[in-house]
Structures are given as C-alpha cells and as structure tokens.
C-alpha cells in the first residue's frame, strides 16, 4: 500500500525560542537555562505571543514584550522558530497602551 506523506509544517515542526525574563519575572516550569541565563523553550506547535506567555506560566504578568528587539503591542503575532522574546513586568512602564501622546 502506498502511503502518502503530507508535510504540514504547522503540525510537525518543533520550534526553538529563546525567552529572556527580566525584572523578577520567573517561569514556574523547568525550561533549560542557557549559559547567558536565558531560557530555551521548545514548542510543539506555533503559538502567538499571548499563547506563549500563558504557556510559560510566569509568576507575574509581563507588560513590555520585545520580540527580536522590537517592542510588540499586538500580542496575537505568531512566534517563529529562532525568535528571541524578552519580557519585562510592568515595573518599567505604565499601563496605558491605548492612550495617545499627552496633550498638555
């Protein structure tokens, strides 16, 4: 019998992501810690930034999200293999994403 193998990258590709936690953020899970103290996280399926944050099971909710050096406001962005994501708690910023430049 001939078996047809259909390659579906969304189902089969394991992704490795570097997660950097700052300002007292800690994951409750035991991810491998790299020499530079950052975490290597393997994902079975592609996740959004928001889903990754949930998956990490952090002690505090992160507020500033930096994906490959760029500040991310849209948490539904998909994470790609090899991405680096840095998370900061709201220690370094306010909670007013939706506000405009202050009018003085």
């Amino acid at each position, binding site marked *: 019998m001939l078996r047809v193998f259909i390659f579906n990258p969304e189902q089969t590709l394991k992704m490795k992501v570097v997660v950097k936690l700052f300002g007292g953020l800690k994951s409750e899970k035991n991810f491998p810690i790299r020499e*530079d103290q950052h975490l290597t996280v393997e994902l079975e399926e592609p996740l959004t930034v928001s889903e990754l944050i949930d998956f990490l099971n952090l002690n505090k909710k992160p507020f500033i999200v930096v994906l490959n*050096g760029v500040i991310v406001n849209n948490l539904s962005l998909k994470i790609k293999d090899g991405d680096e994501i840095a998370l*900061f*708690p709201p220690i*370094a910023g*306010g909670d007013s994403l939706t506000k405009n*430049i202050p009018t003085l």
Partner: protein
Amino acid sequence: MKILRINMSEDAPVVRFEDLGEYEGLGGRALTSAIISREVDPLCHPLSADNKLVIACGLLGGTAAAMSGRSSVGCKSPLTGGIKEANAGGQPGQVLGRLGIAAIVLEGKPKGDDLYKIYISKDTVKIEKDNSLRMLPNYDLVEKMKKDYGEKIACISIGPAGEMKMAGASVAFTDMELRPTRHAGRGGVGAVMGSKGVKVIVLDDTGTTPRQPKNVEAFKEANKRFVLGLQKHPVTGQGLPAYGTNVLTNIINEVGAYPTYNFKEGRFAGARKISGEVEAELEKQRGGNPTHGCHRGCVIRCSGIYHDKDGHYLTKQPEYETVWALGGNCGVDDIDKIAMMDFLCDNYGLDTIEMGVTIGVLMEAGLLKWGDADGAINLLHEVGKGTPLGRIIGNGAAFAGKAFGVERVPVVKGQALPAYDPRAVQGIGVTYATSPMGADHTAGYSIALNVLKTGGFVDPLKPEGQVDLSRNLQIATAFIDSTGMCLFIAFALLDQPETNQALLDMINALYGWNMTEKDVVEYGKRVLKFERDFNLRAGFTKEHDRLPRFFYKEPIPPHNVVFQVKDEELDQLFNW
C-alpha cells in the same frame, strides 16, 4: 522667600538679601534660567566675573511635600557656551527652602586665587577664606565640614575638577547620610563655582520649620493624594524602588538602543552583568541597600547604597546613565569597577556621563583598549590630579575628541549624549538636538513613551510624531524642574490625571494660586523661552540644533537604522 546675592569681587564678599520682585512665582529651573537670561551677558566668558552661578530650590522646596528636594544650578555653561540648568537631589534643596532662600546667586569673581567657604544658618551668612580646603576631594571636604559645623548640615561643594575649572566639573549635593553623592552634573557648573572661588556652601537649618502653606489642610490632603498616586504606579511604586534607575539596562539593551563602543552598536553582550537586577542583588548580599531615598521625603526611593566585595561602603548605587557611560559604552562589564568610577567621579566632582563618553572617545582613539576598566580608572585619577592628560579628559568629549583627532564624537552643543541611542529611539534624538541644554535625556524623556509605554506609545524606530512628543515633554519637564519635584514623578503624572491634579492642588494650596493644566503649559513654555532667548543672544543658530552627522549616516545594529527626523522638522520644535 528671598534671593541671597553674594558678590565675590570685593576683598570682603558682599552679601545682600533681596525680595523676589520680578522673579515672584518662579522656582527651580524657572528661577535659575530667568536670572541667567535677564542678568548675564550671553557673550561673556563662562568663567568670567560677568557670569553668575544660581542655586535654587523649587517652588515646593522646604515644604512638607513629598519628592520636593531637587535643586537647580544655573549659569552660562563652560561646556556648551549656552544657558545651563543642572539638577540634583540630596538634602540642600529642602534646607534652602526652610531657610527661606529661593536662590543663592554667586556673582563677580575674587581678584586673587583664595578659596572661600560660605556658612548659612537661620541668622547668619558667614564667608571665610579657607585655603586649607584646596584640592580636597568632595568626601574629605564634607568630613572636614562635619568636624567644623556638626552633623546637622547639608553641603553644596566642588571637588578638584571644579577648582581646576574643568568643563566636566559637577556641583555636589550631600544626601541623607551627609555624603556628597548627588550631583548637578552636566555642563560644567562646578567650573563656574570654582571660578567664583567658592569651595563649599554649608547650610544649617537648625531652628527652622517647614514652609507654611496658605491653605494648610488643602496642602496636606493634596500631598496625601500625590503620595498615594506615586505608590500606586508600577514605575514609581515598584520598578524604581526595587532596582533603581539601572532597571533600564536590560530594557534599553533588548530594544537595541544601548549605545555600545562609542555609539557603534545598539547592544552590549555584557549588559546583564551590569544590570539593575544584578546590582540590587549584590547590594542585598553585601549589606548595602537597593531601596533608599536621596533626600528626606522621597517616597520613590530609587537610590541605593553600594558596598564593595568586603562589605564596606563604596558609593551610592550607580545610576543607569553612569553604569552605561563608564560601563557598556566603554565595553566594561565589571560592576564593581564601574562603582569605583562612580565614587571617583563623585569625589573629584565630575559628570559621570561626560567622563564615560570622553573615555569612550579615547578608546576609539586607541589610547586604551575597549573594556579596559583599570585603564579608565587611571584616567579618572589623572583628571583628579590635574595632569595635562587629565585636564584634556576633564574638559569633556568634544575637547578630548579634538585633542586626539577623533571624528565620531557624540555631542550636541558640546555636551555628551547620554545612554539612549538616538537612531534606535528617534524621539530622544529630537530632545538631544533641540534642548537648549545640549544633549540631555532629562530635558524631554521620550523613552517614557518610546520604550516604557508610560502615557502612551510612539514607535521609537520611526521619525513620525517624535517632534510633537519631544516638544510636549520638554514643556512639561521645564515645569516639573521648576517645582523642585523629582522628575520621576512624571511617570505617574503621565498615566494618572488624578496625581497630576494632586500636584497642582499642592502648589495652589501653598501659594494661594489657581493654577490649571493650561497654566502649566504656559509656565513650561516661558522657561524654555528664557533659555532659547539666551542661547540665541549667545550666538546659537538652528544649525546648533542638530545631531553629529554620523548619526544620519552610520546605521546602528541590530536595527540598522539611522536618525531620520528631518532638519526642517527639528526647526519646528519651538514653533508653538
């Protein structure tokens, strides 16, 4: 409140108290900039008898208001050639206010090279020649003052750098522990104090009480709301107390805006080792303290106490800009050596930002290798000793860059750029370029919105919206700098309208005013107008409101961007 004028030109310096008169309603930066703009010849030599040094407390100085301990030091700057207001924490601001002094104005210049000390208490102003103080570093000087005048004093002083009239010299303000750790660092204000022959001003508020508000109850109530607002906000209530300003190292590094190797790269591999998180942990382990106010009445407590490996006091917790300038900017990732350099700068009386950038420029020149912390420490000793090389370094990055033939010198109006790359955070580039102070991050701290998402978010990598952002922040900052409030209250003010209102209510209750937010804007604009006007008369043109050209030509990794805000847009900043 009075202005205390001391004319140093006569054999016996002349002291006179004056009413505020035309300066009524002005405090802090508004007062220093108004006096300099109105009374100093903009074309004078900054070290001449025609320049004045103004030391002012803020509108709220000497009251029971939380966070109101900042002092402003104003003059024509020997570094920029323009107007200068350098701002410091510490105890003297509060003490000046309690003594009923809105500002001390040092005028004229002694004929000889004698050094003077000035003692001010409730009833006396005593000025004495004291040449035994010559070339004393700030810590030794303050120890001597404690022996002479007791422990209940606050000191404003210069170290050897100020005596040698170096353009990188600071004016030191003592903290709660009576250590000279808080500095009006920028623009060479210490050199102007040195040119007046004044080594130290000792303030003694024995027998004084806090200034009484016109409406005591309203003041108390507004102060309470103000404090609650600061405690509630994540930056002023959690981030700054836990990690101090150095919490920024990891954040600025991650967004690729951490100027490394004299502004060649936007990330530093050793950033984590010198971050606020590591600094705070070391302070806890070694018996220091990561959460400490720089003056009484501070509720944010972003300062700290740094101990060496043996558990002995080394310096106050080095600030983010210091750790960056003498650390990452020079490729140095040893936090203990950076702390040692912080101590040396405080002791010799030097601006840490100017010194770090200057050493980076010298590393670029090949005088020492990137990351050579011991070499950098030696260079700071050269400055303190006043050797010919030390004098080149002590006069700042622009001066040293010329002396060593370096092209890439990160200065605006002669003043070194601080710890945020203007290509990766374009808003701060606008502030660096246009502030009347020269490159100064505090003049319009766009990082709050470009990175920290306080008060909103403006994409840091794009030129759009940055001029409006910087303008609004420069206006608001000019007002905050005039109140005597620590600028860090701005994080809570930007996010919480009720905290903003509490500040206005406090000022209104103190003076019996009816100041509104609209008045705040007008106040800030007025301050900037004093400053711009002085600079125009001193010969500044729009061409001075520019970044060095390499920021427009050299893309900075990792984002590989250049500064993109157009010159014509920069010229619109003061067009309101």
